């Protein structure tokens, strides 16, 4: 059964995903990533045949997602350090002039 909480988590997933590729600003992208991770962690927490297993997996997934967020933040920081501006990820780098 898909509950209202599931839909709430889906909304975070989709919203976060859209923000990643539509936003030109690093801060908005990181907020999108956080929303995406939150949605994923919530969905995992709602899963599992019993609460103990689900909680254990949710903790594991959350840690993984936190690590992934740290990598993303490091990439964005590197770009900012290199040229003092955010990456324009809404455009294909192959078409950059």
């Amino acid at each position: 059964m898909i509950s209202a909480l599931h839909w709430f988590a889906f909304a975070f997933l989709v919203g976060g995903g859209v923000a990643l590729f539509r936003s030109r600003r690093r801060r908005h992208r990181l907020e999108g990533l956080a929303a995406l991770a939150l949605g994923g962690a919530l969905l995992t927490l709602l899963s599992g045949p019993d609460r103990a297993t689900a909680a254990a997996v949710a903790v594991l997934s959350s840690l993984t997602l936190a690590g992934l967020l740290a990598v993303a933040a490091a990439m964005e920081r590197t770009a900012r350090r290199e040229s003092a501006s955010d990456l324009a990820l809404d455009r294909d780098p192959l078409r950059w002039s």
Partner: protein
Amino acid sequence: MVVILAALVLPLLGAGLTAVLAPRWRAPSTLATLALTLVAAIALVRAVLHDGAHQVRLGGDELAIGLFIADGLSSAMVLLSVVVTLHVAAFAVLQSRELPAPRTSYWPLALALLAGLHGLFLAGDLLTAYLMLEVVAVAGAAMVAWAGGRRLLAAGTRYYYAELVASVTFLAGAGLVWTATGTTVIAELPGRLADEPTALVGLALMTVGLLLKVPVVPLHFWLPAAHALAPTAVSPLLSGLVVKSAFVVLLRLWGGATAEVATPVLAQLLGALGAVAILWGGLLALRSQRVKQVVAYSTVAQLGLLLVAVPMVLAGSADAWKGGVFHAIAHALPKAAVLLAVALLAVSLGGDTVDRLEGAAAHRPLAAFAVGLAAISLIGLPPTGGFVAKWYLVVASITTGQWWWAATIVLGSLLTAAYLARLLQRCFSSAGRNHHLDVPASPQRHGIDGIALTLATSALVLGLYPNLLLGLLEIGAPLATGVPLLTDGSFGADAPLPIGWSTEASAHA
């Protein structure tokens, strides 16, 4: 089973060790780890051939994570990934004579990527697959992004974000499937999905996530830049191996576990996505002016071929299963060869556009020959591995009554021939030979060119002796029993082999 653990742990330990070593020891440490991992991968294949499929569950039966399965598919992919990575690493060691040397972070990242790929190929449950997808995503994107320059950083970050969205979507789907079925083990899913709407939503989410990772048109937006801009020693790993990782999970899901819920329309829809990728990727490759861009769009097209196998697999065709997986392997070798060879040609000829390849064969005959040999396999001409894969797929399309896939495959091959002919025509043309660039051949140059040529020759050997691999792929395959999965399709008759080839592999089943 020790060999499964060895294939998983060796590259992981090697990555950790290499990361803490002084920079000058990183390349030797990587090569030593890869040599050991190659031994483990060969032992894994031997074990599967002799004893059949095995599984290892880390942490006992209570955990929903940590199940690894060694069967024909996973052991073949593990061996392929070590072979390709070893060649690319050897290339990376030698490339500093002509190309910029890889950054010191390259070596541990390459081993971490290999560990993630092995984990993914061997994963028997959804959560392990998710974790390994993340390892592959981080290592792959980091290799692109931190190779230097803002453009690469943008390409790598876009690639990373696409992978992240795909992974979290996959995780969400896996969670829903777990809620509905009470299991995360892929092999336990059959029989538990059909009447569970939650599981179906979960399955759909997992599929979308994997299609973004493969990627399939129209979800391929991140691939061309990441693959075309990536450093020389990274592109072959991405184009040859990483893109296959999500396909293997997709094939495990759709080729066995979830076949009961697939409708013919859904199966055809997946195949149609593959067909669009074949045509779209082929046309864009034909229009591209930069060589690596041609190869990147070629990857989009060749990945479509993998997806075209899915509706035939679901119709119960063992030939489609074998053809699809054989293509995944047969594509990796020549693709890696082309990417390495064109990098050498580009540095020798002073540019990476198609027109710059004019007269390349006169300057670097071994590299140009590697491109030619690899092109034959990518097009699917006999007697290469690409031909065997396409043969099986075409036969599957006819035996399952889905002839339109045969037409798509032939059309895709013609497009491949067209865009690769542009490269070959320039390479082997003597009209525009750049005499001012003539450099005397040296043993070092032959050595590095020989790496690309070895990979291209492997694709030829795979075509000349396909039976060992075909026999291996039948071990533990969901279709080896010959049970139709989707409809009462025409599975049962073994595909006729090309004239002159033995039928030992078919008899093995």
